[in-house]
């Protein structure tokens, strides 16, 4: 093997830097923000970013239609995106991996049920159902997290199921049965460690998807409720002004794009590093 192609290594490193940077901003948001992200200043509405004409040094990325500092809102928005991403992956990972591993490991009727659950889940129109749930229960961060978590487990389940099925038939698992190991020992120590690298890659994909979906829900007005500064909501609130000041949608849009790109780069890097396959 000629080692890892350098270009991909750079991309993976870049991805790691982006994700860690956003995570840092999310954790230490209160210490980093120059202004209160919720403080309205109606005298200073729609101030453009400081490098543009009419910009102010105090507001690096300008202010929004209510005069709130855009950079501060962006940093607090990172909290929401990261929180959504991480929590959704944990919830959906727990559901999907449990179902997939059980179906793949036990086969037979158990697997039939798991396959049926996956098929049903895939048949449900994702965004529409998420929107309905949020609209019916009432929009809050918790509701969005759990709605996405309860909907996005399908890929975890599919990948966990197929990889478990492959590993289950290998001779080292047979040897462990013959060695007198218990079922749970075999599942946890022989099977799971040999599929976990595939699942880590799925986790990055799902994290990116969850972040994009939250943004889309918030954009449609049924995600995170205002005045919380979700990036999707920022784009939605700003879109009436975008024809005259395009930067109002550029700033949060680029933030969203760069974060998701970073996660994808990181995922591709992990895939190469861990030797997982892409399409499962």
């Amino acid at each position, binding site marked *: 093997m000629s080692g890892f192609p350098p270009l991909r290594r750079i991309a993976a490193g870049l991805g790691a830097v982006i994700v860690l940077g956003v995570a840092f901003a999310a954790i230490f948001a209160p210490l980093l923000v120059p202004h209160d992200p919720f403080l309205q200043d109606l005298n200073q509405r729609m101030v453009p970013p400081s490098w543009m004409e009419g910009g102010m040094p105090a507001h690096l990325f300008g202010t929004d239609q209510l005069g709130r500092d855009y950079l501060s809102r962006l940093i607090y928005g990172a909290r929401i995106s990261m929180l959504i991403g991480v929590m959704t992956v944990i919830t959906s990972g727990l559901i999907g991996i449990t179902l997939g591993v059980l179906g793949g490991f036990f086969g*037979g*009727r158990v*697997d*039939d049920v798991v*396959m049926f659950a996956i098929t049903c889940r895939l048949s449900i129109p994702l965004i529409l159902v998420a929107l309905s749930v949020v609209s019916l229960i009432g929009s809050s961060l918790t509701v969005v997290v759990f709605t996405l978590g309860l909907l996005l487990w399908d890929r975890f389940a599919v990948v966990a199921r197929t990889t478990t099925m492959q590993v289950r038939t*290998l*001779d*080292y698992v*047979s*040897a*462990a*049965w*013959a*060695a*007198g*190991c*218990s079922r749970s*020992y075999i599942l946890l120590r*022989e099977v799971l*460690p*040999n599929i976990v690298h595939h699942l880590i890659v799925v986790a990055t994909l799902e994290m990116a998807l969850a972040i994009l979906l939250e943004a889309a829900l918030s954009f449609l007005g049924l995600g995170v409720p205002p005045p919380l500064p979700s990036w999707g909501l920022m784009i939605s609130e700003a879109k009436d002004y975008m024809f005259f000041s395009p930067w109002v949608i550029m700033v949060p849009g680029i933030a969203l794009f760069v974060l998701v790109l970073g996660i994808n780069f990181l995922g591709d890097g992990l895939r190469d590093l861990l030797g997982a396959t892409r399409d499962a």
Partner: protein
Amino acid sequence: MTAAPAIEARDVAKIFRQGTGMFSAARHVRAVDGVSFAVPAGGCFGIVGESGCGKSTLARLILGLYPATSGDILVDGRRLADMGRRERARLIQPVFQDPFSSLNPRRRIRDIVGLPLAAQGVGGAEITSRVAAMLERVGLSAEMAGRLPAQLSGGQRQRVAIARALILRPRIVVCDEPTSALDVSVQAQILNLLAELRRDLGLTLLFISHNLAVVEHICDEVAVMYLGRVVEHAETDALFRAPAHPYTRALLASVLTPEPGRGIPDVGLGDTYPDPANIPPGCRFHPRCPIAVDACRTQVPQPRVLSGRTVECLLA
């Protein structure tokens, strides 16, 4: 001969339902179809046959990896099905064919070889010392213990698999094609090691292979399987000297010894191939048999004892 045989199979059958589940058609595959034999303690029993004859399924049945559909497997006169997993593990251990898939790629050699001990609840320090001793016994240096399987060659991996099989000091080792994935030079090393260990530890070996030359070299008794049944069973010398079943004869004729100028023999089988999902009526070998008569198409041959051997053929 008052002691019970080390392993005894009584009319063992295994039927797989392929494509079970509610959304696809089921198909019944009779992988093992009424097999009986007994292996005395300390013996080496060979099972030969071609792909699809059920020999690997039989190995897995004897290891307790599958439940038998019918029939009994007895170890030391006790039913395998009545034993707990720990007790079974102390009596029987496997060596599988593919040294690449038979070792967990994410665990160190120490943990792989020590796994049967850990499953018995043996403590860490004792595992370490017993693993080290066992690695040495199979011809590996103690420093191998810290390595991962990927750092070992095929022959070394198979030695690790043998060490794992022997660490509990089992009475019986089931070897399922233990050398067919190896090069000939390494195959000879492993066969020599198995023969030596068998002698020193008084093991009973069940040796499954498609390679007749290997079986002839290592086994005392041989059973020939065809489509899930034992069609001929005899002591090795008798079987190789005068095979009685036409299938055994074809198998023996197919062995290509390195003797130049002998040419390739005509084994006399046609171009039909056995399919365990579709077993022919009558004698299951008749579509390929060079000497089949009309009766073979309808009449199922019963096992017959003939001069120290058991044969299932109407014409034998």
